[in-house]
Structures are given as C-alpha cells and as structure tokens.
C-alpha cells in the first residue's frame, strides 16, 4: 500500500492506475450484469391460471396456427380445465439444437415440445420424454380416441412398444403436375421419365417448360426422404431379418441409379443437387418444370394466386409413380413423417400438459389448427371434416396415399445417425464421387458397423 501511495502521488501514475481500475470495473460490471440477466428465470407475469408452455417451431404454419388453436382453447376451456396453453415459438433454423440442449438439460421451463418422429427413439432412450401409456389408459384424465389415428402415424410414435408422443401433423409428398400440359399423370417411373423428356426443351424444342421435372437432391433433411420413395417402390427395405442393413440391395441400387439417371438425362435442372424445398417450389412456380415431387405443405402455396400467380389454377396432384411388377400391379411408396407433441419428463405439470396435448391433437383442436392454415393432424375425422373440405381439398388424396402406400423411418435411437449416413453417401453419389452401387455399399457397411457397436448383433 505504501508503494502504491508513492505511485499515486505522481500525476502520470494516477492517470494510468485510475484508467486501469476504471476499465476493469466497467468490464466486470458489464459482464456481471449480463450474466445476472441471463441467469434470471424467464420473466413471466404471475399467472392466474397454470400455464402449459409448448415449444413450437416458428415456421409457417406451425406456431401461427397452433397459437390460434390455443387461443380458442384458452377462451373456451381454460377456466374449467385450470390451465391455459401458451405457444412459445422457436426459430426454424436451430430448432433441433434447441430441442437437444433443452431436453438434455432437464429444464422444467416447458411442458410440451414439437418433435419429429425420427428423434423419438433417442430421446425416449435418454429418458427425457415421458411415456404416455398410463395417461392414455386413465380415462378420468382425458378420454382419448387413438383408433381415429392413421395407423402409420401411431406406429411412428411407438418405441419399444410404448407410446411416447401424440401425432400432431403428418406429411408426405405428392406428384405435382401441370394439368393444362399433362392430361394423365404418370403411373410408373418409366412413364414419369418419358413425360419428363417430353417437357424438357433439349428433347422437345416445342416444350413450354425448360425441364420436365425436378427433385430434392441437396444434401440435407430431404435428400434421403425423397429417395426412400424410389427405394421402397423398387422393392427395397432398410433391413433384412436381425437388423442386417440392406440399403445396397439390387432394388436399392436400381432406385438410386434411376433417380440420378434423371439428372444425367438432363430432364431436371442442372444444379438439382442444390435443390431443397424452396428451390423445387420455385421451379414449378416459375414454369421451369412441368412436374415436381414435393411436400404436401406446398399445395397451399402452389394453388394460391398470391404466391403462384403463373400456375395457381393449373396445378394438380397425384400419387407418386411406382414400379410396375410382373403381374401388372404398381408398387408405390409414400414417405410419411409425423410431427408430434412430446411431454417433457421434467415438466412440473404433467397431467395438465397431457390434457393440453390431448386437446390440441383431438378432432376439435385439429380442426381449429387446420382452419388456421395448419397441416393435418393424422385423424380420419380431420381428413374427412366437412368444414375443411374447401380449405384443404388435397386432404382426401393425402389420406388415401398415406393409408395405402405410407411408409416411415424406423424409430430406433440410432436413426438420426443412420439418416446422416444416408445423406452423406447419397450426396457423394449425386456428386459423382461414388457410383450408386459403391455409395450404397459404403452406406450399408457404415450402418452395419454402427449397429454392431451398439450391440444389435449380440
């Protein structure tokens, strides 16, 4: 302290020491303030009713439409039920990361979360989402009709025989085509290829479109999901008995060769390996292609005069083409995935949360969601609801293709990793770095090693 006083006596030293101290105080105070603010629990006004918080993806239509449904519930039922539903939108990009970190942190800050069915296995195995069977069988809690659900959707929420989620929307893909140009949509992949050639200007200079069709070949969520439809329709299955992978079966190789063959033949845009949902949307909207294999959610935008002024009244939908079998029948396959509500295993309001998810996925809740622009809750009563017939004219076909041809991924904990392996090797095949056979051989080998490491083969 003596020495410090000596230093402080000189003018220059006073300035230096003071500057250092002030700087440190300011920095520490600022950072301490930030840390304190961040560590505060979410500031919510003290509710008069219990609040059930639902983390929901903030992309149209999910959070907007669920918010409208929740508002209806809060107005009509919240007093009797003793709780209200609060939809908390989470940004679309980064939703998965949020889901992982929030669930693994065992945070009680939310009660329900929107989750894609392919992740149910791993979060169920982690013990962070609640199995629902004992809630469903307790009729005093909320009488709930599971029989109204499409079977494919219920299978997608089971893990080791237990139900871990309630399906809240179901998605599949259609063949969208220009009905003013194509009088009869193709039934088989061979017909699909011929129609595509007819509407590609390099084959047919009189074609009104530049390319016949398009596909989602960009590395990402949708590349594998679109390919599965070719894969299954050609006769492929993910696994043989005892979990032996069979992605590289002859059916698998043929399906990938066919899909990549569309690119080699030039009937799809040249940069199709950079095409995902938005680019496929633009290709048909901009009259660049005459057909597109695209998600059901695009129907609203394709048939809207505001969003698709060039083609809104010229688009129709059909089941995806399939593979003609020797007996003449056509084997089709439609990929189906289900968005679901899961119940946080660390929620402090589990019974109320179950009632909330039960209402949201009930026929009444589903109709309110759909009327606000939402995609279908996979209930027969929703698909056939007369009040939604005009709002969603595509739903009868959607229900039909899901029932007849719907197939889904396998809800094992390793599926997210397997999905990424499929992504990587399909992308390498699309880039020409590997032949379809080599790519699927490598994929098969990777999946086998993964499952072996996880103890699937004893």
């Amino acid at each position, binding site marked *: 302290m003596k020495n410090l006083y000596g230093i402080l006596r000189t003018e220059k030293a006073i300035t230096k020491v003071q500057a250092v101290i002030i700087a440190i105080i300011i920095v520490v105070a600022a950072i301490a303030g930030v840390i304190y603010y961040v560590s505060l629990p979410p500031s919510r006004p003290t509710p008069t009713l219990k609040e059930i918080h639902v983390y929901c993806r903030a992309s149209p239509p999910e959070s907007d439409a669920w918010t409208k449904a929740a508002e209806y519930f809060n107005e009509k039922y919240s007093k009797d039920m003793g709780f209200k539903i609060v939809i908390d939108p989470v940004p679309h990009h980064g939703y998965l990361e949020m889901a992982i970190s929030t669930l693994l942190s065992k945070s009680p800050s939310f009660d329900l979360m929107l989750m894609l069915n392919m992740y149910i296995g791993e979060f169920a195995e982690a013990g962070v989402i609640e199995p629902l069977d004992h809630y469903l069988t307790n009729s005093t809690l909320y009488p709930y009709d599971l029989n109204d659900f499409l079977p494919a959707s219920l299978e997608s929420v089971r893990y080791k025989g237990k139900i871990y989620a309630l399906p809240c929307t179901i998605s599949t893909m259609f063949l969208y085509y220009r009905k003013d140009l194509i009088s009869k949509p193709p039934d088989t992949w061979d017909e699909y290829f011929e129609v595509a050639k007819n509407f590609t200007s390099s084959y047919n200079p009189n074609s009104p479109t*530049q390319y016949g069709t398009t596909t989602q070949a960009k590395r*990402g969520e949708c590349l594998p999901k679109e390919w599965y439809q070719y894969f299954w329709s050609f006769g492929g299955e993910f696994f043989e008995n005892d979990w032996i992978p069979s992605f590289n079966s002859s059916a698998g190789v043929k399906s990938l060769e066919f899909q990549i063959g569309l690119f080699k033949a030039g009937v799809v845009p040249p940069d199709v390996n*950079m095409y995902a949902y938005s680019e496929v949307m633009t290709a048909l909207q901009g009259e660049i292609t005459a057909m597109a294999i695209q998600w059901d959610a695009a129907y609203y935008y394709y048939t809207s005069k505001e969003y698709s002024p060039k083609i809104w009244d010229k688009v129709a939908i059909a089941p995806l083409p399939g593979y003609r079998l020797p007996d003449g029948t056509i084997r089709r396959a439609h990929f189906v995935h289900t968005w679901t509500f899961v119940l946080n295993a660390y929620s402090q309001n589990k019974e109320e949360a179950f009632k909330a998810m039960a209402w949201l996925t009930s026929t009444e809740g589903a109709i309110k969601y759909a009327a606000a622009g939402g995609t279908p809750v996979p209930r027969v009563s929703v698909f056939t609801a007369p009040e939604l017939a005009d709002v969603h004219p595509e739903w009868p076909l959607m229900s039909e293709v899901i029932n007849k041809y719907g197939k889904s991924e396998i809800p094992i904990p390793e599926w997210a990793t397997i999905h990424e392996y499929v992504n990587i090797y399909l*992308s390498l095949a699309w880039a020409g*770095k590997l032949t379809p056979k080599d790519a699927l051989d490598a994929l098969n080998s990777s999946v086998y090693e993964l499952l072996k490491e996880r103890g699937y083969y004893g």
Partner: protein
Amino acid sequence: MKKMKYLLTAPLIALLMIIVIYPFAYAVYLSLYDISIFTFAHPKFCGIKNYLNVLSDPLFWNSLKVTAIFVFFAIIPELLIGLGIALLLNREFRGKTVVQALIIMPMIIMPAVTGTMFSMLLNEVIGVIPYYLRLIGFSGGLLSNPQPILFIPSQALLTLIAVDIWMWTPFIFLILHSGLQALPKDPYEAALIDGASKLQIFRHITLPLMKPVMAVALIFRSIELIKTFDIIYIITMGGPGSTTETLSVFTYLHCFVMGEIGFGAALTVIILIFMSVVCRFMVKYLYYGR
C-alpha cells in the same frame, strides 16, 4: 503491490474460468466418454477411443483439407484486395465517408441473410449471376459442379470462397486503413526528398511499417475462416458430396444431427489444438517476425 495486482486481475480471471476454462474442461471430460443423446444420462468411459475414431475417419481428414483450402484461397485475395482499397482510400476526397460506408456494407449484413441471398443469386436457372456468366461463355455449375479445379476440390468451394471474399474483404480494409492512417509521416517526407518513386516508397516504407497490422488482420481472419459455418451450411450444407464440408460443418453434423456428443467433443479438442498451433505459428512468424 503484488497483492493489488492479483486483486485487480482476479475478476477477469474468474470470468475467463467461467466462460473459457470450464467449458473447455467439460468438453475434454465429454470426449473421454462414449456419450450420445440417448446415453447422456449414463455415459461409459472410453478413454481416447473418440480421438482415435476422429483421427481414423476419412471424412475428418477431408474436412481438414477443405478447411485448409478454404482458408488459404480466401485469405490471400482478401488481404490483397483489402490492402489495395485501403491504399486507394488513404487520401482525402469528397464523398470519402460515403464510399467507406458502401465498402463495409457486405460485412454488416447478417451471414444467414447473405447465405440465403447468394443461394438465390447463384441458382442456375433463375439466378442473376449464372445468367450474366453464361453471356460471357461460362458453362455453369457454380454450386452444383463437383469437379475439382486445380487444388480446389470443387467449383462449389471456389464459389463459397468468392462469397467469403465479398463479405469479409471490408473487414481487412478497415484494419489496414486504420493502420495506414496511423503511420508516421516523417519517413515519407524523407523519401520524397531523396527522390524515391511511389513503388519504392510502397515497397521499402509502407509494407515494412504495415507488417504488424497485416499480421493482425491475417490472424483474425484466419481464425474466423476456420470457424466459418453459416454461409456454408445455408448455401451448400457441405455438398455436393463432401466437397464443401469444412471442420465446422463436420463438427455440427456430428454433434447436433447425429447426436454423437463424445465424438463431437473430441473433435472440438482436436480443432482447438490445431488452431492453437496455427495461431502460435502466425503470431511468432508474422507478428513478431521471428
């Protein structure tokens, strides 16, 4: 006096412990366990197995190669163009502040917005950039062509490098421009009196005096380039194939998509060691010049 020194630095050290040391220590801990999303509650100790898995994964080495190429081929043009613009603007003229504001605009756009914007601009069928390139005879495939060009694994990577140069050259310009403004005037006056040409002045006075500033710019940009994730993920997601899969994209996919937390933690430790070596080398040889 000694006690005062420790007392004054204690808050900062405590902060560093919380936001740097603890997360790193936790990452090292996770890297020693076979831990994924579904084994998070009951991980198994596996020693260095995750590190061996990373080092034996051919896609890891591919991502390291892609990252090195991305950094090298982006930093050199950014430095040269940034220096050129800084030299051009190292004088007073009317409208200089407006020109400077326009130059730094690419840098202030959010990377996610830039990525989305270039995804549309580079679309082969509807994009503006391929349209004009086709007019001058370019065949196309800015993002989709997986064929290598010289040392660059694919045209897509070259396009991403160009996007990064567009975005971050203004950052280099800002640093170098500030450096030029701070240079002493006396050596220049002496050189002019001695009859030195502009090239000689640039080569023998400006460049040596600017070396520490350029080193700082290089170090900062190199670190940021290694970390680049947003524009790559939005525009190509690491494709076509794995030709644009950098270390950051590779790490993200393993941690957050595949849920391989132990593998991802080992990857981050390896990347940290790699970046520490690179930074040490750059500081030693570029900044201190020895």
